[in-house]
């Protein structure tokens, strides 16, 4: 009985602790509506088709301003892009290299090379973007509280500024952005890209696919993590049940 009571108290304490950390996570008091994601839940995995379309959006739209320095072309294997396609995609961009004679030359990128960055340094990025620095997107899906839902809300959140709001010069009104003034111009518009699988490129579709790709980029081993987890937790659960009976048997002669 006492153990039950203590356990209940511990559970109550844990509930408060957990709600504390989720309150901590909710940023700026803006509510981000939960979307349906293929990767939600313990069985959720990255939808490869969506992630590939998302990569296309990144490459054709975002990559003009945003780097993804932690990603290499070989990482596209994880969303099902075939090896020969990866080679072609990599070779479309060049990278500085030093040849056998010690001269700096440009060569085609290989799958092991990183995604090309749009600007050589942060100063150059600011100079081309009205003083604002477009952040690196490698970890963006994890670097914001409620990441995927926030990203979707941000990408679809451009609106006319309310009449009573004075906007700073060169800023855009976005319902999802903390403070509602964002330096990034609305990046998505219908049919901005043409998906090779025939999916209609609405703003919502592109935002959804891009977020799926960014989630993959933020943690390329997520699917593997969950798959491994199912086996590990199941194993430990069964082991614990067996240990319970072992304990009972060992202690039986004491009672």
């Amino acid at each position, binding site marked *: *009985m*006492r*153990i039950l009571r*203590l356990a209940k*108290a*511990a559970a109550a*304490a844990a509930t*408060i*602790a957990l709600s*504390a*950390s989720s*309150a*901590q*996570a909710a*940023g*700026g008091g803006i509510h981000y509506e939960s979307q349906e994601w293929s990767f939600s839940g*313990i069985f959720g995995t990255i939808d490869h088709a969506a992630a590939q379309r998302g990569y296309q959006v990144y490459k054709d739209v975002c990559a003009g301003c945003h780097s993804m320095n*932690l990603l290499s072309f070989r*990482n596209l294997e994880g969303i099902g892009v075939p090896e020969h396609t990866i080679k072609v995609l990599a070779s479309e961009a060049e990278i500085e290299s030093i040849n056998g004679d010690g001269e700096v030359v440009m060569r085609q990128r290989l799958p092991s090379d990183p995604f090309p960055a749009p600007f050589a340094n942060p100063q150059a990025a600011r100079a081309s973007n009205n003083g604002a620095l477009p*952040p690196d997107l*490698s*970890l963006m899906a*994890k*670097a*914001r*509280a409620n*990441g995927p839902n926030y990203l979707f809300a941000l990408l679809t959140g451009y609106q006319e500024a309310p009449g009573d709001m004075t906007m700073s010069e060169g800023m855009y009104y976005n319902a999802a952005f*903390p403070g509602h003034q964002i330096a990034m111009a609305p990046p998505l518009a219908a049919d901005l890209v043409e998906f090779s699988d025939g999916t209609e490129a609405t703003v919502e579709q592109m935002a959804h696919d891009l977020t799926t790709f960014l989630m993959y980029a*933020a*943690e*390329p*081993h997520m699917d*593997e*993590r*969950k798959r*491994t*987890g*199912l086996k*590990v*937790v199941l194993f*430990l*659960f069964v*082991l*614990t049940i067996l*240990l*319970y009976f*072992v*304990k009972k048997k*060992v*202690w039986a*002669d*004491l*009672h």
Partner: protein
Amino acid sequence: MADQNAPHTEITNPLLKWVDDRLPLVTMMNHATVDYPCPRNLNYWWNFGSLAGFSLVLMIATGLVLAMHYTPHVDMAFASVERIMRDVNFGWAIRFVHMNGASFFFIVVYIHIFRGLYYGSYKSPREILWILGVVILLLMMATAFMGYVLPWGQMSFWGAKVITNLFSAIPLVGESVVVWLWGGFSVDNPTLNRFFALHFLLPFVILGVVFLHIVALHKNGSNNPLGIDTKGPQDSIPFHPYYTVKDYLGLGAFMTIFAAVVFFAPDYMGHADNYIEANPLQTPPHIVPEWYFLPFYAILRAVPDKLFGVLAMFAAIAVLFILPWLDRSPVRSMRFRPVSKWFFWVLGVDAVLLGWCGANAPDDVWMGLQFVVWSRLATAYYFLHFLVIIPYLGLFERPKQPPASIADSVLGGGTGAAAVAAAKPMEKA
């Protein structure tokens, strides 16, 4: 089971016996982990000591592998952690185990401490055992704080900045002390380097103090839910197999929950800002420490004066050192202390409330009061509990009469968890 306390193990292998006669490692291990007599009525709250030991070993093992792949340089630390997450074989698993292992280590240790508070495990003759435990807690806090700095994310950097800046509150030499801690004029590469070195060193210091903690434990043996001394062989059972198997069961349950968090919600207890690389020019809107520091953070912020805030925060731990002398009650277990028992639970609620205050901005309002007001009330109560309520109850509370012996309690039906062992009378005791 008349011989259940008789030594289990005779060394039969002649070579092993020859070695053991000269270097008695096997005999020592046998005394400490096989024949070691324990009270027969320990409940499941006693599992958390071995779980804490397991957590320490797990942290050292995973930390060692992480150290092999980590680069303690401000320009490379963040990327090197991401490289572990992305390119090192099973690096993601090792890193998530280490990251969440810290949280679980604190969960286990906090339960272990509250168990000690409830059953009076700090009382004579276990004062030094308790004090060593508080030393371990302090070392854990230092280690965890420095470990959190290593990934060099935004919260790492700004957490380091806030906490090291606390030392500037020391009169006269504060500023110099902070520069000395930083190894420069800001949190920078020298700070990261030394934090890495110390984060590697301190766990082994903890291991040393844990060894002393166990030596002190084995001198007088475990306390028990009744809080009375073992009076003879009928009160105790050998550690092996009874408590080894019980500890394995506890470990299985712990590992199951731990694995579920590591594999399904590894970032749940973390903060999104730490996935942004440290930027000394951009302060995050809310600087929040890891959850296990939140109660102390609340105490720090409850006091308007910086120096006294820091002192209050350290006093919150320091008061634990003198607890054995603050509580004068001759009865250990709260089971027989009808009033203290309730104040124990109030302290538990107070600690959770402090944590909740630490997680929120001081100016935000909750249930009609600003969090800073809640923090002040909760902080005042925390010290009231240890400095007034406990000494007062120790002198004036009328405890109930504990049973004469553990075996009596077991045979006679006893109370609470001890009754579990009384389902059938002992046949051979």
